[in-house]
């Protein structure tokens, strides 16, 4: 068997916390994405409604989904990095009984 990462990885005490946060954020985004699909499918004419800066709902929602992915990604990274720094300090690793 030849599995396991190509680069040596240290123990990550934050991985469980990050996985839970990731799943929560995934469901938030999935809900917003589902709303987009539902409106497009059930009432596509609603997508023509003017919303902001002269743009209709289709453009606002579509570009919003792209920008939301970027913003949520940056927030996720910030929170994960903070948690990693907090839980993976040398002393906390020692306490964790690695």
């Amino acid at each position, binding site marked *: *068997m030849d599995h396991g990462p190509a680069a040596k990885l240290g123990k990550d005490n934050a991985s469980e916390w990050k996985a839970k946060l990731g799943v929560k954020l*995934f469901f938030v985004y999935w809900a917003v994405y589902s709303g987009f699909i539902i409106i497009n499918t059930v009432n596509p004419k609603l997508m023509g409604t003017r919303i902001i800066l002269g743009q209709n709902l289709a453009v606002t929602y*579509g570009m919003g989904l792209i920008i939301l992915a970027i913003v949520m*990604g940056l927030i996720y990274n910030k929170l994960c990095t903070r948690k990693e720094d907090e839980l993976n300090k040398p002393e906390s690793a020692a306490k964790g009984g690695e």
Partner: protein
Amino acid sequence: MHYQASPLAIILFVAFVGFVLGLSFFYARKAKSVDGYFAAGGSIHWYVNGIAFAGDYLSAASFLGICGMIAFAGYDGFLYSIGYLAGWVVALFVVAEPMKRLGKYTFTDALDAKFNSKGIQFMAAMSTLVVSLCYLIPQMVGAGVLVTPLLGLDHAWGVIMVGVIVTVIVATAGMTSTTYVQFLKGGMLIIFSTILCISIFYKGLSLIPHEGYHKFETIKVSAVGANSVKLANSSYKFLDKQNGFVKLQKDNIASWWCLSKKDGKDVLEECPSKTITADKKVLYNGAPKKDKRFYQVGHMSKIIVDGKEVAKTGPLGPFKFLKVIDDSEIVRFKENKFAYNGDKVTVWSPNITSGKSIMRPGLKFKVDNGANWWSRLDFISLMLALFFGTSALPHILIRYYTVPSQRDARKSTIVAIIAIGFFYILTLFMGLGAMVSGVLDLNSSNMSAVLLAKQFGILLFSIISAVAFSTVLGTVSGLIVAASGAVAHDLMDNFLGVDFTDKGKVRAGKIAAIVTGVIAIVLGIIFKGVNVAFLVGWAFAVAASANLPAILMLLFWKKTTAKGIALSIYVGMFSALTIIMLSPKMWKQFDFAGTAPLPIDNPGIISIPLAFITLIIVSLLTQKDNAKLEENAA
């Protein structure tokens, strides 16, 4: 239309290819170890990896396909951009770090990390090969599509050229050279697409898109009969009337005209046409291609700025650009096909479309007028496959093994989301810009973005053409690395248990890359003419159905067993491919008789749940396997 090779485009492309080949030979010494060849030694910086992700992901389908689709069908093309980008959220939040933690060279490693199962090794490798081939074919076809008009080479030579270059890149330095090719290509694509968009905004919108734009004629009609029309203008001679179209002749050239009404009176409007004669001659607007009578099209019939009708706008900001299009009217060309005395005729009739219809869904996807529940289900199915397919594409997943840590895997995914998201926003402007700039080739939507660039000077056109070529090179090299890993690492080393030395495994990887390259060249030639975006859709649907349920359940359901994973991959892949084979699109593509057995084109809505159900049932039935695994571990 008649294309002419641009010497500058050829020079830039040759320079780019020369540079990346030089880079490949330079990095070849780094690729002598297995880690170096398959995973670039796990030493790539997260920022470089993030842009390389963009270079890997933004394939010919994204740059050429989506821009072309928006140029021909408006907002519906942009739905692909949204779905392709949204898929990265799954990659970031759910897949990135576990993939990095569990795997070594291929995504099969990650799936099999806990089990050491022959079933998983075989099925995941097969799925990697099927998805990679489904993705490779359109890239190679795209290479041929680009090479023919821009370098003046035959389709087959274009495919061979790209295939050979990419195989050399991969076979010399594996993942390291592939990473830098993708990094350069991703960076160039985003920079020059931004420049193209700025040029579009600066130029603004105009009723006459450019000086050389063809002025479509209208002829008054004095009487319309069942099989004839009487013309008010005598310079044309009436020949025939069929399917609502009228065939006229002038200067010994026959052309097709559309019968319509203007101010309540019957008129004939000049229509672009293509005729394939019974003796296989191809005529454009009644003449051979070299006569250059097949005009580029796409213009606005009414421009409204702040409630006032104008002939041109001058420079516009991005939001104002979209608003003016929404308020105005655009002439699109509807394709009509019919047989005429043994000839196959295609006539494109001008169709004034409101900006409001263009800027919302419904022109391509049947979700509005003429929609039924099947067509709506088909649309949902497509959006599901795009969302869940990205994070299950093997050539994307292997990029997680090229960075040093899980943190780097996460950061590189965020860089990828920013770069790819920004590019996808640009596709809306490039597509709409092409739609109204009089540059469209009605015969090939794929060329829209490249032809748009030509309007802003030969330099930008040449650079964009070179970028389009590099787009194919970057993605194909990633796919060949993925396929080579599946053969050498998953199948030969793990599944068959071939006793490789480090050097032997790299050699096997290189041979697998060369064989994959040859297969890709052959398939690229065989599938000439098949729609590029159509085939990429297969890859996403198969990846989402075969791979994602296995990845998600492995990560989040402790009862998942090896047999459950192996069978769910099989069921997901088999059901997705079967539905595609029996779909209406397939029936139309290959001119099969009768109606297709299944009413939908996109399999995701059936095949993804089927794979999940299979995994759950089989896992519940094989819980003893997991108990044994735990006993052995203890």
